[in-house]
């Protein structure tokens, strides 16, 4: 497992939005993002960077404290220690006050032509 220096979540919110700024959970600990831009409002793009500097056994984007949060699309860019950055794109998902989104994916195995 690589050491995750930092990661950036970029997402577009659908119709329903969270009432409070998004947070994330790493290895069971609730942490606020280090840098944010945009807004998690309907139709808007929100970008947030976390700098855990740790080994992510689990990494979750927290659901809203109340109501639902429609996310149209998410991309997560990972900067791991000693490796090139890579990005994973996720499809639409709806979170509620009892759910969190898994956002930890190891680098996909490369596919090449033979």
């Amino acid at each position: 497992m690589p050491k995750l220096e930092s990661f950036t979540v970029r997402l577009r919110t659908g119709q329903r939005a969270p009432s409070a700024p998004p947070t994330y959970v790493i290895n069971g600990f609730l942490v606020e993002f280090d840098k944010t831009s945009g807004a998690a409002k309907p139709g808007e793009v929100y970008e947030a960077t976390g700098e855990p500097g740790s080994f992510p056994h689990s990494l979750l984007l927290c659901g809203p404290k109340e109501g639902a949060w429609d996310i149209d699309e998410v991309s997560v860019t990972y900067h791991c220690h000693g490796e090139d950055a890579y990005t994973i794109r996720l499809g639409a998902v709806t979170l509620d006050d009892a759910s969190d989104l898994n956002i930890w994916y190891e680098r996909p195995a490369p596919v090449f032509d033979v």
Partner: protein
Amino acid sequence: MPTWFTKAFKSAETRPKPRPQVDLPKAQPAPVAESRPQPPLLPSEVKSTPKSRRVIYAPVLVEEEEQSSWTPEIRIKARVEKDHRSCVFMVDRPVLQGLSAWYPSAASAKDSPLAEYLFAIPGVASVLLHDFTVTVAREPGSGTSWEDLSKEVGARIRNHLLVGVPAVAPEFLEKIPSEDELRQKLSRVIDLEINPGIAAHSGVISLERVVGNTAYIKMGGGCQGCAASTSTLREGVHRAFRDAVPEIGAILDETDHSAGANPFYRSLPVGMEADA
């Protein structure tokens, strides 16, 4: 020290939520006349437990290559598996449509011209043909790099398909039992051999379906998310299945090992547990 760690413990707001306090019932005054003493309230009756949380997995989107219509040129893509022992070759046309065939050694590949052709490459340890894919494992410690081996395997698959010889001989196809028969045999192996063996670890294996001669299984209980589940699958399930039903081809694990009630890593804070 990791920054998230420092932050998590420096700020009271971001500190993991403490276990919710349960208000235990206070000592009741002596019962007055005419009222029957009430049994003490259970903690669950005093205060509701926090809502458990579940982890959602969104679909991972893969950039699709612009696919043109069918071309005579055979295109093959390779993906080296995480353990670096095997490599999956994805072909743009069927290799063994709807079926699968497993060859653990060159000696076992007499009824497959394609597998025999691949075993002729030094360092090839096993060959699995399945629908549009060919999975090749290399001999451990052979020193053969996938960079060289994958090109050779790809070239041989392409040559074989161009010649038009079937991947397996007709005799192989005749030996394959019906899906129902395979399902019954595999279920018996699971019930009588596999599950009793892993019950001590609270593990359970279930047969999800059989398609052609390919078995799809799921691992549950203590097996789900267990770091040794790969060994259980390879050394236990594969061996038991193939000993009892030699005609079985691919055995595919459909378990999500990071989700569910008993994943290997599960340490969300109190009140944020994954759903049981």
